[in-house]
């Protein structure tokens, strides 16, 4: 089992590394650095003028609890395990313990950064930054440890009271964090430690039966985790074999008559439905347009608004690109007696419409607050990028990579 875990882990890390290199390509890193810098600057400005008020403690506790909920159990199990390793079910627990320990790694880094970022706020709250920061970090790590144990025993038939599950854990974490921020994080850490050790002694030592592993639920949760991960990668690069989910979204059928049902619109018919019903694209478009409108409402510098609006249009256009290739594996689509140029034209048309509508909706943010000038500039910047993207960049990209590879 140790060897199995090691080979699985090595293979997993190799693929992750491959994808991460594709995600963090040069221009994306540049955008991230700029955004990160702006965020840090904004944060430091905000902390400087901050007064300790009643909502600060629970708000910080809430943010840290949300941070705590990230990070799933990476079991790296495969569906075939349920058949081939069935006789080894009991010893598979050793494998899963290793998987749990590994799963603790990435959240630890994130939580440590979260604790470090809270240090300036501890100063505002009159808590000693050194001891406070360290105990706050320890508190978060101990809760994460407990969270991963809970995620692990979810797949086992472990006798336990109903309140030993993830949601009550987060409630407890929120309460301990709030208490810790009122007195000193060390008190919260003591609660976390008591819960964690209590769980290990009472539930794990007393009721854990390695033979009761539910393979199907383990596989289902691993598949869900990997799917979420790959869908994230898919925003930046092509993930082969990713079957993106679909939702019926019947209420969106009002948009379907926009494409006429004639042979010349065969591809437009398909792409419109792909955009509206595949899980990735519409959700992304809506999320970015809302975030963008809010951000633009807060910006009062005209050139910054134009820049941010243009950047947002570029981002959303870039992330619509995989839709163009969504049907490249579809045998029937290759056999249609329609000219190949129709597919390219249909996707270009869809992209142009989506980006122009996106640009116009963005201006609703500043308009709502009566910032006419900012709205005008943001709209102009966004429309310029939309036109450039659809009619210059997109044809260039589609020339480089055929829509239907041989």
């Amino acid at each position, binding site marked *: 089992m140790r060897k199995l875990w090691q080979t699985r882990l090595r293979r997993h890390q190799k693929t992750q590394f491959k994808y991460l290199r594709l995600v963090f390509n040069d221009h994306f890193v540049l955008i991230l650095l700029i955004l990160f810098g702006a965020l840090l600057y904004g944060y430091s400005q905000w902390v400087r003028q901050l007064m300790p008020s009643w909502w600060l403690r629970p708000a910080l506790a809430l943010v840290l609890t949300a941070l705590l909920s990230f990070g799933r159990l990476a079991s790296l199990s495969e569906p075939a395990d349920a058949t081939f390793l069935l006789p080894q079910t009991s010893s598979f627990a050793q494998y899963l313990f290793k998987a749990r320990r590994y799963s603790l790694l990435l959240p630890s880094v994130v939580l440590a950064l979260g604790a470090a970022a809270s240090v300036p706020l501890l100063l505002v709250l009159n808590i000693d930054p050194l001891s406070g920061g360290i105990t706050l970090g320890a508190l978060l790590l101990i809760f994460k440890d407990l969270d991963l144990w809970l995620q692990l025993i979810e797949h086992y038939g472990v006798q336990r009271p109903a309140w030993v599950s993830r949601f009550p854990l987060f409630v407890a974490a929120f309460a301990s964090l709030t208490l810790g921020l009122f007195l000193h994080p060390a008190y919260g850490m003591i609660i976390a430690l008591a819960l964690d050790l209590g769980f290990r002694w009472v539930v794990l030592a007393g009721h854990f039966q390695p033979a009761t592993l539910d393979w199907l639920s383990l596989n289902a949760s691993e598949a869900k985790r990997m799917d979420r991960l790959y869908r994230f990668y898919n925003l930046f690069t092509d993930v082969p074999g990713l079957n993106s989910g679909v939702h019926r979204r019947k209420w969106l059928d009002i948009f379907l008559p926009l494409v006429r049902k004639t042979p010349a619109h065969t591809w437009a018919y398909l792409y419109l439905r792909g955009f509206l019903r595949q899980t990735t694209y519409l959700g992304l478009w809506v999320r970015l347009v809302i975030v963008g409108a809010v951000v633009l409402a807060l910006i009062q510098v005209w050139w910054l608004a134009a820049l941010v609006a243009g950047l947002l249009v570029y981002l959303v256009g870039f992330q619509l690109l995989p839709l163009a290739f969504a049907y490249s594996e579809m045998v029937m689509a290759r056999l249609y*007696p329609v000219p190949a140029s129709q597919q390219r034209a249909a996707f270009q048309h869809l992209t142009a419409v989506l980006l122009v509508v996106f640009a116009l909706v963005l201006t609703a943010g500043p308009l709502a607050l009566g910032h006419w000038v900012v709205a005008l500039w943001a709209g102009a910047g966004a429309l310029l990028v939309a036109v450039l993207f659809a009619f210059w960049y997109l044809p260039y990209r589609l020339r480089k990579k055929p829509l239907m590879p041989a």
Partner: protein
Amino acid sequence: MTLTLEHVTGGYGNLQVLKDLNFTVEDGTIVGLIGLNGAGKSTTIKHIIGLLTPQKGQITIDGKTLAEDPDGYRQAIAYVPETPVLYSELTLREHLELTMMAYSLDKDEAWARAKDMLKKFRLDNKLDWFPAKFSKGMKQKVMIVAAFMTNAKLYIIDEPFTGLDPLAVHDLLDLVQAKKAAGASVLMSTHILATAQQYADQFVLLRSGQVRATGDMAHLREDFQLAADASLDAIYMAMTEEH
């Protein structure tokens, strides 16, 4: 409509699977494409429908290759793949609508034909379902309806019977014979030899990417020197025992 393969050699990239294939599918005939797993049946079909391009030789429909008249060539073919392939985000109704658009079918006529088949396959109350809710047999039926709704002159059916219930197999064979009666031709690959013997007029026997024998039953019996009542099964076994 006549489909002709002349000296077709091809495969995947550098891997050569088909070696110098020659056969024709004439108007109003049903041709059975028979061979072991890996003999090249599906590869032959992929070359005919244009998913793969022959390395040598040429494939013509009424004298025209795919390159000479892409839209006309594709318009002439209806294809039912071995494994059903459907768009996960389209309903059954939309699959049929899309097919009508792609093949420039007259909507009223095509829907009339489709409705009959949907009723036969007991799919007429599932027009608004997504493929995720269909069983494998139901998906196969959707592919059959989409293909037989068109005005194609050549029907290419890859392993049509796996996953279909016996009633659906009968209905499919009825459809095939109706199309034959209407003058279309059918190329059908299958392992169900008894059915093939009963329904097909001509056979193409493939072995290791080459045509071992073609012709009707009488011709095949003669070729393999078997008795006058020898079944296709006996001919098939005789072929596999040859070296």
